């Protein structure tokens, strides 16, 4: 526990000591209480971001200086209750229980005070120094209500600050209160449960005290309460201690007795009911608010989640977001592409020719370009998603879509990442973060790749032009996209049933009131996402791009090059020069490591009629789907580019209809590009899932391609 107040008392006389006083504060609160906006409102703050170990949950630390104190505020992910459920809640809970810190700031929403106070009561069980911040007080005052701060302070025994991030109210007071609380000893606990429960708590403490781990009476009381609350984490914590045997015996008896006494199924319910009743009374004492009529939120909801109109409105919003992300996003993407290819050309000219030049201008610079290229998409998509989340619409979207997606073992919110997948899989994987439940998230991410991304379009267009010439290309293309989506939904259902059989999936979700988004926290979040992407996925992507460059460039064949260069020089007209160049490029790629790999594994693709050129192209497609067509162009020695009719002609000559259909299936299902895979790895830390994700789409793609090929064969194609 805390002993800092002693040192800071003596420090008051000595300025040089005060300067080094560091205060560590954890900021905890339920989701949707405006925690980030409040933290962002603290002036002169420096924000650090990072990751909690083992999970993809961002940490934010805000550093401020005041009156010679260095104060760091650790912003914990939103947590509804110490009976944690989502991984984010688990992160917060572990931090609260296991880490060292001086003060807890508990932020609550004045509008839902009683529900928020239930969590506050759980925090008070910890007996740490604590400050209660009642946020969004402006909304209560606007309705003509008020919160009695003094009364709450008296009842809870901790300082209370009324604040509003929007009106910048109470922000300085929070900082001042931190310093005050830090300087003074902790006040005595004022929250007690009913007699029959306190009796059991006392009994448990007396047993726990026998162990040296629970010498601190406050901590022993906390553990005793959590044990009565049937807290799995606390079981695990003391499971290996000698005192456990005695605790375990008495605990079982206590559970039975209490459950009989209170006529409840579980002691967890008894404690929940006590806290609910207590927080209800606290709210009655401290909050004055006139009877609410229909709120603005409800009026908006009458339209936006209208039983009939809700869905089309939502689909329209999604269409808009999609257009913005991938149409508007393509403009800066072209600039980025232009910038990097021109820089590469420029540097290639000013540097002496050779290995280093080639490494830099064909390896490194394009690799960096490949990373930066995704930023416009990611930024726009996340701006959109953050807007949906901050305004409160995302919860409505989940409400609207859940009935449909539930049938396929997915959750309502999965719709946004799934649709984004049609644009680009990389930001779509990141968008899956909006799913807080890890099972929902992993299933969504595992089937996301089946939503054909924009980069696969040229491949489909090529195959359609070559083999479906007498069909409406739009219809064929539509069938391919829908086919992928339907397959994704079916696979999602299978994954849910096979991998998570019989596990209940709660869909109990707060639907927050509509709010105007805060510009500052929108931008802050975008900045954090950008940094995370560049740091984590970016390094993966750059390395992967370098490896692909290496495989397709080496080993060098100076002899072949020399022979062809002579031939090219001797060629008389432009046309034959061009075709000789194409031939050289085809020969070089064929003899590169990539070509060798493709030829070696060609037997795998033989059963559905791929020649080695198609195999190499498909393998190159693992790097980026954009290069599939250009690789084919190079290998069939007709030069890259879709506008090239030569390639369509060559395809017709070399590939039969069945193999073309198999190619579509492979492209649709097999692993997405390295950038997407890197993003998946960055988002999902468990190696088991990473391995599964890397293997299963390729197996599925092969099996389906093989099946369809043979069905077509039997059908006489």
């Amino acid at each position, binding site marked *: 526990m805390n002993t800092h107040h002693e040192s800071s008392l003596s420090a008051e006389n000595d300025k040089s000591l005060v300067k080094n006083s560091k205060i560590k504060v954890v900021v905890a609160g*339920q989701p949707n209480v405006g925690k980030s906006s409040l933290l962002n409102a603290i002036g002169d703050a420096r924000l650090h971001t990072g990751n909690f170990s083992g999970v993809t949950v961002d940490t934010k630390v805000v550093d401020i200086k005041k009156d010679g104190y260095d104060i760091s505020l650790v912003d914990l992910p939103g947590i*509804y*209750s110490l*009976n944690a*459920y989502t991984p984010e809640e688990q992160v917060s809970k572990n931090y609260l229980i296991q880490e060292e810190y001086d003060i807890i700031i508990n932020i609550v929403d004045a*509008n*839902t005070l*009683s*529900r928020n106070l*239930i*969590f506050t009561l759980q925090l008070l069980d910890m007996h740490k120094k604590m400050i209660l911040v009642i946020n969004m007080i402006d909304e209560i005052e606007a309705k003509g209500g008020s919160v009695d701060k003094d009364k709450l302070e008296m009842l809870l025994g901790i300082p209370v600050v009324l604040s509003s991030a929007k009106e910048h109210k109470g922000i300085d007071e929070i900082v001042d209160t931190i310093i005050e609380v830090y300087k003074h000893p902790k006040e005595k606990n004022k929250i007690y449960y009913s007699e029959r429960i306190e009796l059991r708590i006392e009994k448990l403490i007396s047993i726990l005290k026998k162990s040296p781990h629970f010498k601190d009476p406050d901590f022993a009381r906390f553990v005793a309460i959590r044990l009565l609350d049937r807290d799995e984490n606390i079981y695990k914590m003391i499971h290996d201690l000698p005192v456990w045997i005695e605790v375990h015996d008495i605990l079982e008896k206590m559970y039975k007795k209490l459950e009989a006494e209170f006529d409840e199924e579980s002691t*967890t*319910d008894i404690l*929940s*009911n006590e806290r*609910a*009743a207590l927080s209800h009374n606290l709210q009655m004492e401290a909050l004055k608010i006139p009877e*609410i009529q229909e709120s603005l*939120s*409800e009026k908006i*909801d009458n339209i936006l*989640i209208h*039983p*009939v109109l*809700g869905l089309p409105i939502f689909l329209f919003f999604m269409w808009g977001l999609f257009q913005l992300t991938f149409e508007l996003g393509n403009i800066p993407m072209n600039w980025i592409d232009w910038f990097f290819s021109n820089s590469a050309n420029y540097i290639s000219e000013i540097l002496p020719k050779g290995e280093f030049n080639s490494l830099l201008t064909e390896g490194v610079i394009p690799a960096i370009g490949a990373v930066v290229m995704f930023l416009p998409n990611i930024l726009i998509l996340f701006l959109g998603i953050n807007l949906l989340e901050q305004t409160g619409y995302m*919860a409505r979207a*989940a*409400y*609207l879509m*859940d*009935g449909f997606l*539930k049938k396929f073992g997915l959750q*309502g919110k999965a719709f946004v990442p799934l649709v984004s997948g049609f644009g680009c899989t990389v930001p779509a994987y990141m968008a899956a973060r909006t799913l807080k439940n890890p099972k929902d998230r992993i299933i969504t991410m595992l089937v996301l790749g089946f939503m054909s991304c924009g980069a696969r379009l040229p491949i489909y267009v090529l195959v359609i032009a070559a083999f479906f010439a007498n069909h409406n290309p739009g219809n064929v293309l539509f069938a391919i996209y829908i086919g992928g989506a339907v397959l994704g939904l079916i696979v999602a259902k299978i994954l849910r049933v096979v991998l998570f059989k019989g596990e*209940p999936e*709660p*869909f*109990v*979700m*707060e*639907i*927050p*009131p509509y709010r105007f988004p805060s510009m500052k926290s929108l931008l802050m979040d975008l900045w954090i996402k950008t940094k995370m992407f560049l740091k984590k996925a970016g390094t993966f992507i750059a390395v992967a791009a370098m490896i692909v460059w290496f495989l397709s460039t080496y080993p060098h064949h100076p002899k072949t090059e020399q022979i062809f260069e002579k031939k090219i020089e001797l060629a008389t007209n432009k046309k034959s020069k061009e075709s000789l160049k194409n031939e050289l490029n085809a020969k070089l790629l064929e003899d590169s490591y990539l070509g060798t790999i493709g030829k070696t594994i060609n037997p795998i693709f033989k059963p559905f009629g791929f020649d080695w050129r198609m195999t190499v192209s498909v393998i190159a497609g693992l790097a980026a789907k954009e290069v599939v067509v250009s690789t084919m162009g190079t290998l069939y020695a007709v030069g890259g580019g879709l506008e090239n009719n030569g390639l369509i002609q060559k395809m017709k000559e070399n590939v039969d209809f069945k193999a073309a259909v198999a190619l579509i299936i492979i492209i649709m299902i097999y692993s997405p590009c390295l950038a997407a895979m890197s993003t998946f790895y960055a988002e999902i830390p468990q190696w088991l899932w990473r391995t599964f994700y890397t293997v299963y789409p390729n197996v599925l793609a092969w099996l389906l391609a093989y099946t369809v090929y043979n069905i077509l064969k039997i059908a006489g194609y």
Partner: protein
Amino acid sequence: MKKVSQMNIGDCAIVRKITAKEPIRGRLTAMGIVKGAKIKVLKHTLAKQTWDILAGNTKVGLREEEAENIIVESEK
């Protein structure tokens, strides 16, 4: 006594029993849907697959399956 899934839009009721198992039970508690709480059905989707419930001052989205596991008593 009836289930929330049997209520109509605009109906108010008092929660009498929650038959859901953990972890759904804990989620409901955290949202303020506990024994004795007053709730109101704000909306449900066309096929009644998803429900929008007001508990205290919190709006909660629920699935049909969860709405079936909340037993309420109607309020006049």
